[in-house]
Each structure stands twice: as C-alpha cells, then as structure tokens.
C-alpha cells in the first residue's frame, strides 16, 4: 500500500480536510456548525497522525495511533463541553448563532 500511495497524497488530503474544517469553523453562523468544523479539523489531524505513523514508524512503535486515540478522547470531551456551552448560551441569549454573541465587542 505504501508503494501505491505516496505519503504526500494523504497529507494533502488531510490538509484539504483541515482547511475545509477551518472555513466551517470560521464562517458558519450556527454554533453547532462551528463545532462540526472543528471536528473536521481534528479528523484531519488524526489522519496525519495515522498516516505518518504508518509510513514512518518501524514496527513496535505506536505513537501515531496512540495520539490519535488521545485526540479522539479530547475531541469527545471538547464536543461534550462545547455542546453544553451551546445549550447554556442558547438559554441565556435565546440564540445559537455565533455572530449574535458579541459581548466582547469593543
């Protein structure tokens, strides 16, 4: 498999996924949409980890996959907290749009 697909191809795919996720996180109005963008970015990172682990790590080392698991864990935690925040914000502001929440405005 490693002969068939160069490492660069996978990494470019991950980069594309990351940038799409970034665009989503930056431009979706809905908070859940933002969260989904962030999940896509995390997935891109995971792809990088697994790919680099697969291509570059010799046999007994599992750092890539291990850190993928950690990132999945963090992503799950982030999703739980983020969604809880969305619900709390929704209760307070009666909206789930990010651009309506601008109490930081100067």
């Amino acid at each position: 498999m490693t002969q068939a697909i160069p490492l660069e191809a996978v990494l470019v795919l991950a980069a594309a996924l990351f940038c799409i996720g970034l665009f989503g996180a930056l431009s979706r109005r809905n908070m859940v949409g933002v969260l989904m963008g962030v999940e896509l970015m995390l997935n891109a990172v995971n792809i990088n980890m697994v790919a680099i682990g697969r291509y570059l790590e010799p046999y007994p080392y599992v750092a890539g996959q291990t850190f993928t698991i950690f990132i999945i864990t963090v992503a799950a935690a982030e999703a739980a907290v983020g969604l809880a925040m969305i619900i709390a914000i929704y209760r307070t502001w009666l909206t789930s749009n990010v651009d309506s929440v601008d109490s930081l405005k100067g």
Partner: protein
Amino acid sequence: MAFFLTYAWLIPALPLLGCALITFTPLRRSKLASGWTAIALMLCATVLAVGLLAATAQGLALRDGQVVPLAAAAGHGEATAPATGEGHGEATTPATGEGHGEAAPAEGHGTFAFPEPNVVQRFAWAPIGESVFAMGVYIDTPVAAMLAMVTITATCIHLFSLGYMAANPRQSRFFSFISLFTAAMLLMTMADNLLLFFMAWEVMGLCSYLLIGFLFERPQAYRAAVKAFITTRIGDVLMLLGLVYLYTQAGSLAFGTGAGEIFNPELLKRLGSESGFFGVSHATGIGLLLFAGTVGKSAQFPLHVWLPDAMEGPTPVSALIHAATMVSAGVFLIARTFPILQADNGTTLAAVTLIGAFTALFAATIAVAQYDIKRILAYSTLSQLGFMVAAIGLGGWVAGMFHLLTHAFFKALLFLGSGSIIHGMEATPQMKALHHQDEYAAQQTAQDIRNMGGLRTRMPWTFWTYTLGYLALAGIVPFAGFWSKDEILAHAFVGANWVVFGVLTLAAFLTAFYMTRQWRLVFFGEFRGGQPVVFQNPEPAPRTAHHSHADHHTHHDDHHDTHGHDDHHSNTGPNWQEHPSMIAALVVLASFAVTAGFFNLPFAIPGGHWLSSLWRQEAAPLNFIVAGVSLLVALGGIAAGWSLYGGAFAGAHDTDPLNRQAPALFRLLNEKYRIDELYAASFGRLTAILALAWAWMDHAILDGVVNSIGRLTLFIGQLNFIVDDTLLNDGPDALASGTLATGKRTRRLQTGKAQDYLSYVFGGAVILALVYLYVLK
C-alpha cells in the same frame, strides 16, 4: 527564672494580643468577655513582669541564652557608701567614668552609672548602608521595676474599668484601647533603642488621643483630644529632631555603653566637647531637644495645657494615662538618656531643673483654687511630675525614678478613688435629673467638690483608700510619697540649690494644703449635692448623639425624680454602691501606696536602699534636717487646709475661704493663670494675624502677579493661535483626523465575535507562514 528573662518580650505582647483579640474577634460583642480577656492577659503580663523583677533583683542576666549572674557589673555601684567620685568610676565603670569626671564638679555629686543590662535581645530590623539597624528589648533593673509598676497599675485600672465603664456602650472598645496603650507603654519601657522608644511613645500618644476623645459625643472631649495630640506633638517633633541629631552624631540609637551605642563614654565625651549649632555643644543640643519630648509628654510648663483638659476622658483613662503611666514616660525618657543630658557639664540639667521646679510650684498653686476633683488631681500630677523632672535635673536619678514609681501607685489610687466618687455622685437624683438636660453639665457638676461632702460614711471603702493615697501624696511618714519626695528634697538640699529647695518645699506645702482641702470638702461635712452648683455648659452637646440613650432612660428616670423631690436628704439609698471590681482595684493600689516607699528606705538596714542597690547606683542617706522640714511642711499644709476649710462650705454655693480673702489671686489661680487664654491670644492670634497677612499678600501681590502672568499668557496664546491657525494647523489636523479615521476603521475589527478573532489568528498565521516560506527563503 530563665523563663522570665527569656520571655520578657511577652510582657508587651500579651496586652497587644488582648487588643487584637478584642478588636478583631467577636469577643468585642460582649463587654464582660472582652473586659475579662483584657484583665486575664494583663494578669499574665503582671506575673511575668514581677517574675522578671525578681530575676533581675537576684542579679541574674541572660547572656547567649544562658542565665548567668551579673558578675561583670557587681564590682561597682553596690550601695555601700556614697561614691567617692573618680576612683570608683575609673576602677570599675569606664562607661561613665569619663563623663562623670566632668559632670561631677558642677553638681558636686551625682555619679551615675548606666546599669548593666540583664537581657538584651535584638534582631536585625532594617539595613542602612553598611550597618543594620537592630530592634529589640533591653532590660536592666530600672526597666524591670518600671515594668512591674506599669503592669500592676494597669491591671488595677483594667479591673476598675470593668465596673466603672459598665454603663458605656463602647466598653469593649475601651478595653481594646487601654490594652493597646499598656502594650505600647511596656514596649517603650523595654525598648533597646530610641527609635523603638519613640515609636511606642507615639502609639501611646495615639491611644491618649483616642481615650481622651473616647466620649466623642461631647465637643469638649474631642477638642481636648485634639489639643492633647497637637500639644504633645510639638514636643514630639522636637524630640524626633533630637533623635536625628543624635543619630547623625552617634550613628546609632541603641542603648548601652558599648562601642557604637549611644552611652559610649568616648562618644559622650565628644558630644560634650564639640560644639554644634549656635555655639552650644552637641550634648546640650541633643539633650534639650530630647527634653522637649519630656516637656510635651510629661506636661511640663509651657506645654502643660493639655493635661488638665485630658480629664475629659473617662476617669480610668485619667488614672492610667494621665497620672500613672504615660506622663511618667517623659520622666522615664530623661532618666533613660541621662548620660547624654549630663555630658555637657550641667547646662542641660540646669534647664531641666528649672523647668521641673517651676512646674512643680506653678501647678501646685493652680490646684489650690480648682473645684473639679479631677482637675485638682491633674494639676497635682503636673506638680509631682515637676518634682521628678527637677530631681533628675539635680542629678538625683534614683530619687526621680523612685518618685515616679511611688507616685504612679498613689496617683492612680487617687484617680480611681475620684472615679468611684464621681460614679457615686452621678447616681444621685439631682445629677440624674440634670443628666436629661445636659449630660456634660451633669458630669461636670458631679465632679465639683463643692457639691460633695460627707461621703465618708456613704463610701467607706473609697474613703479609706483615698485617705491612704492622700497621705502618701501629702508626704506623711511612713507612706510612699514621703520617702520619695524627701529624697528629692534631700538632693536639692545637699547640692545647696537653695532656690530649688525652697521652691520644691513650697510646692510640697501647697500639695498638702490642696489635698487637705479636697479631702476635707469631699468626705466631711454635710452632703451638699441637694442644691448643687450646676455647671453652666457654654455649648450644650447636640442632643442627637445621645437622644436614643436619653429616651431610653426617660421613663425610668421620671419615676426616680418623683421620689427625689420628696426626700432630698435621704441619699443614702442604693445610689452609693461601690462596685466590687472597683473596690478590689482600690485596695490593691492602696496597699502599694502605703508600702511602695519601703522599697528604698534611706536607712542602712537590711532592705534599706533596696532600689538603689538594685539599680546599682549610690544611695543617698537620710538627711534628718530635710526629712524634718518636709514632714513639718506637710503637717503645716494639712493643718492649714483643715483649719481653713473646717467650717467652710456649709452649702454648695458658699464662697471659698481663699476667695473671700484674696479674690483677685484666687480668680487668677482658678483661671489657671489664664495660660490657655494667653496662648489663644498670643500664639493663636499670632497665627490668625499671620494668616490674615498671608491672605492679604496672597490677594494683593501673589494674585496680582499670577493674574498678570495669566493675562500675558493669554495674549501670547492669542498671538500664537493666529499664527497657528493660519500656518501650522493643517498638518496636525490631518494627522488627528487620520488617527481618528484609522481608529474608527480599526474599531470595526473589534466585533466581539469569537469567529472573527479566530480568523485574525489564522490570517496572521498564514501571513507569517507566507513570509517565512517566500520572503525569508
């Protein structure tokens, strides 16, 4: 014994703890709890102080954490015989040998050896340049004696306050204040350097201010507090100058005779010989400046005016601060810095003697013509402080300190006795009726000795203890005052200071006289409170402050009044109670008033000259001529007083016999030589005139100058404006509006939306990465 020496620092710490406990914990909500806390801690401190005194009396000292006998100092100053000057000093005490060698010819006697310390504990406090300013405790035998005196008196006064202040809603605060005061006094006593001494001294000044103004609803009280604070401040500023002066000369403020300490003989010799400002020697300058502190704190003429006014404070305060302890701090100061005072061949000491003797007589004459029981005692205090100051000025170091100790006991006793009397007087129906109209007038009326009389049977405990204090103050053998006063007179006599001797003897006569007058009027004859001389309050207190209080009592007291009108003369009812805690305090103090004199009996018997030997000073033998004169004078004063006032004052409104015979003089004395008015007319008016002159200067000259400068500036400004507006403005205007526009535009970046901020972050990261990738490569 090692415990008492090692933990001597606990003595001031305990009352301080009491203050903190009462102030910062819920203890303050309960009057009794706070009172007993303060008393219990004071008792512990008393035990420690007495133990310390016992330890030092055994000649024990603490060196490097080990208790050793004070062997080094044992060789000199033993109270065997009057020292013979040089040989004694040279042989064993190089510390004072030199200074003494020069001072002795002027005085003829007065060898003074600064006592060896028993405990010195110091810690580095503040680094200054290459050296470190150390703070700590420095305990020698006089300090130990002072500590014992202060703790015992303060404990009695705490105890007395428990009963006396029970009706005051702020009793807890009172205990907090007097605990703080006691802590400061104890700290001052055992301070190891003049700076710490001065700090504690100032804390006492603060406490004095707080306590004089304790009944701050009364304008008289807070005014007296301010007056006391400012008057003593004059002395304190001069004293601080003296400290600075001393520090510039000595490079240290630490007590002790070692190198780098202020009583170092070489240093003292240099201070005495080199001349500083105005051609006087350093020692004179420093000594007089330090003595100014004493004049302020011990209320010597001309800064005496605050002390009688300080009687506006509650009576235990008068007893604690303005009789027993704080005012004697001034005397303690000159006793402590005595080597400096005597380093200049007696110039300073002459001034000290002069002021002291003058104050002794001056205050005694005023006391003769006062009616207020507390004011009489206040002027008596002034007079006695004058005795002490004069004694130290005469070189009678032991005599001055001895009188300080004995006086503290019997004056505290007298003040507390007067407090008990006032407490009783205020409970009479007449005073209570007056209380409704004007609380302050009621209190002043209750303090008027013309309104008293016949209290002998009504307040027996007070009567007997007061009598003991009275005899001690009058100087009757064998009470405390006799021995100490006699020693002072003996110093004047032996030193052939005939003027001083005469003045002090006259003051002693007057003391016996006015005390007899007071004692006679208060305790004998008929009770005259039925138709009292009502104090005319020139400025009735605002009713708002005490309105709720008065309303609270109205119903109850009306009930009393109906009774009071029915039977004016049956005042022997429950009014004349003597609170148990007050009696206890009185009895303890009375026992000391009787026995304190025995600590330094001028006989060569076992136990004689005890204080002198304890302090390792030479002892003055009993001079029978002086003792006889002094006793005669005292008896004469008593006899004069008794005969003059025997039949006087059948009613409260009678004229004073002295007033009848010499009305002008009496009036002058009664108005205290009009010193207050003099000050108001001289310094006060001078200040006012100066202020007016300055105001005129300000308006006419300074304002003119300032205004014309202003006009000129305006003119230049207008010129400038024309040039500016036509020529220079465009650039800055463009810059300003550009900045404004940029700000407006940039402001829109600050949208408050998290997404926008995130896109700035990523945008920034992209730009940085592009720069890295394409520009830097």
